[in-house]
């Protein structure tokens, strides 16, 4: 199975010989480097451990925090406050739409490995067309949550015989 994105390529299969053959035949036609076992692909980091595989986007999250000046913010333990009420179509508190969209776009990308933030992101992305200050606060709350939990990684446990 091969996955290609612009000039990056990942592949897998169950026959090691076939993988080697494919690599060789590709190297003949294209100029490419073999980075061996995957550890980084489009911002997604892969860690192979004794207990299984870990997927995380720590580097990407840190870049996002820095970009939106939240690298030194105070972390919060939960994603969204429990009694949050967001009213639609607010007149006041207009914020920079492109900033809002960039921020939400980055958060959507973080959802690739961090499913815990999908609810909050789902909430703020509804206001992309009409961003207002209260929604931006929710965004910032999500960033502060990420700040405290950059380490979290999706764990795919290795199959054990027991």
């Amino acid at each position, binding site marked *: 199975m091969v996955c290609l994105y612009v000039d990056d390529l990942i592949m897998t299969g169950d026959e090691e010989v076939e993988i080697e053959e494919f690599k060789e035949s590709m190297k003949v036609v294209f100029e490419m480097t073999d980075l061996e076992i995957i550890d980084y692909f489009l911002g997604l980091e892969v860690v192979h451990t004794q207990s299984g595989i870990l997927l995380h986007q720590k580097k990407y999250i840190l870049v996002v925090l820095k970009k939106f000046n939240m690298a030194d913010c105070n972390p919060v333990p939960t994603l969204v406050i429990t009694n949050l009420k967001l009213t639609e179509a607010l007149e006041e508190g207009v914020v920079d739409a492109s900033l809002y969209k960039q921020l939400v776009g980055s958060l959507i990308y973080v959802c690739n490995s961090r*499913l815990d933030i999908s*609810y909050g992101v789902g909430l703020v992305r509804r206001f992309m067309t009409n961003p207002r200050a209260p929604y931006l606060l929710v965004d910032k709350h999500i960033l502060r949550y990420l700040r405290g939990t950059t380490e979290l990684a999706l764990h795919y*446990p290795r199959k054990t015989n027991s």
Partner: protein
Amino acid sequence: MNAPVSWCSKKQNVVALSLCKVEFIASVEAACQGLWLESVLEELKLNYRKPVQLLVDNKSTIDTSKNPISHGKSKQIETKYHFLRDQVMKKKIELMYCFTKEQVANIFTKPLKQSRFEKLRDLLELKSPDVLD
């Protein structure tokens, strides 16, 4: 052995009049995704437990999927959503009951208190690397 493969959190685009119906519509979406994942597994020739199980924390949703009784709260369920009942009858999908407290999908539906949030996050295999080693 559990690990998330595909997930989604979105606003339902239909107005539902009862919780049973809300859950029913959500189950239909999950069923579509489940069937798609099943076809991927088929293509990869991997073994899996058939039929695909859906864990729902609402008993009347499960009943509605098995038995098309039309009354009070369920009669407005549109016909297209009865795709789910069709799949259940064909034994492609099985709806199982799970307690609301154990429903991991709730992390995608509402703001939760810190303790619940952290528990569900852990159940979804989002771990801190130092806990694992």
